[in-house]
């Protein structure tokens, strides 16, 4: 009986603690209005290996086809590095659809480009964690 009461007390305390913590996080995430830049729609980027694409004409065709796609914000096709890179709105088009488009235009198989990392990005893992948490809890976007 004593044990049950103790467990109930702990449970209640934990519930109150969780509610207060969550409310605090919500207030923190929504305290400041998002800046003009933070309100811009989210983008993603994908790069594609075009080493299988033989002629330079196909590179031009790929560039034209990608720019026509709804959701693509920018596209660069480079015959020297044999690559294409695209920034896009992920809620309008996916990287798989872009890959399919390139393969159809080029008429050959194309793969995603994997980069070798070198002295990477200075964003620390902890600040990334809190940044993502804030983004997901912010209702003012």
């Amino acid at each position, binding site marked *: 009986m004593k044990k049950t009461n103790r467990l109930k007390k702990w449970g209640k305390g934990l519930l109150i603690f969780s509610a207060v913590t969550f409310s605090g996080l919500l207030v923190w995430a929504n305290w400041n209005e998002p*800046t*003009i*830049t*933070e309100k*811009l729609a*989210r*983008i*993603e*980027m994908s*790069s594609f290996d075009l080493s299988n694409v033989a002629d330079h004409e196909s590179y031009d065709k790929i560039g034209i086809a990608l720019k026509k796609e709804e959701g693509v*914000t*920018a*596209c*660069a*096709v*480079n015959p*020297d*590095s044999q*690559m*294409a*890179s*695209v*920034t896009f709105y*992920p809620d309008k088009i996916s990287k798989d659809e872009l890959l399919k488009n390139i393969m159809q235009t080029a008429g050959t198989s194309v793969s995603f480009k994997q*980069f*070798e*990392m*070198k*002295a*990477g*990005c*200075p*964003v620390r893992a902890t600040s*990334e964690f809190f*940044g*993502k948490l804030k*983004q997901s809890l912010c209702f003012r976007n």
Partner: protein
Amino acid sequence: MRKITVATVLLLSVLATSCKKEDKDPVVTPTPTPTPSLYTRLGGISAISAVTDQFLANVANDNVINARFADAVADPYRLQLLRNNLIDQICAGSGGPCQYKGKTMLEAHTGMNITDAEFGALVGDLVASLDQFNVPTKEKDELIGILAPMKPDIVGQ
């Protein structure tokens, strides 16, 4: 009597105003039209974000420097952060309503040993993205002029 007095006053006031010595035409100094800020001339936040997206795509295709950005490209959150910081820098530097909240260039690039060639490649990618959007030479030079002083904090750190 009262009516005559009122009419007389009215008549006298009309005469007084009509006989008023006219001022010579005052010298009108035209107020100079203020020059729009670089931010406005570039096209505002939507134009700057379009140029930034093109710049990021150019950088990803550039084998001289794309390995430096591999971390950012691979993670959507980091890419968004990089993109937002770039837009904020250009927007704030050109007189726009933004505030750059990222690390200083020195803090962000310390330990990375960025070379002259890498910095040159980055500037080339930026110029190419500005050319793609037909940004006039004057605005392009102004923008490069704002960003160029950052070189000592980026190269060789």
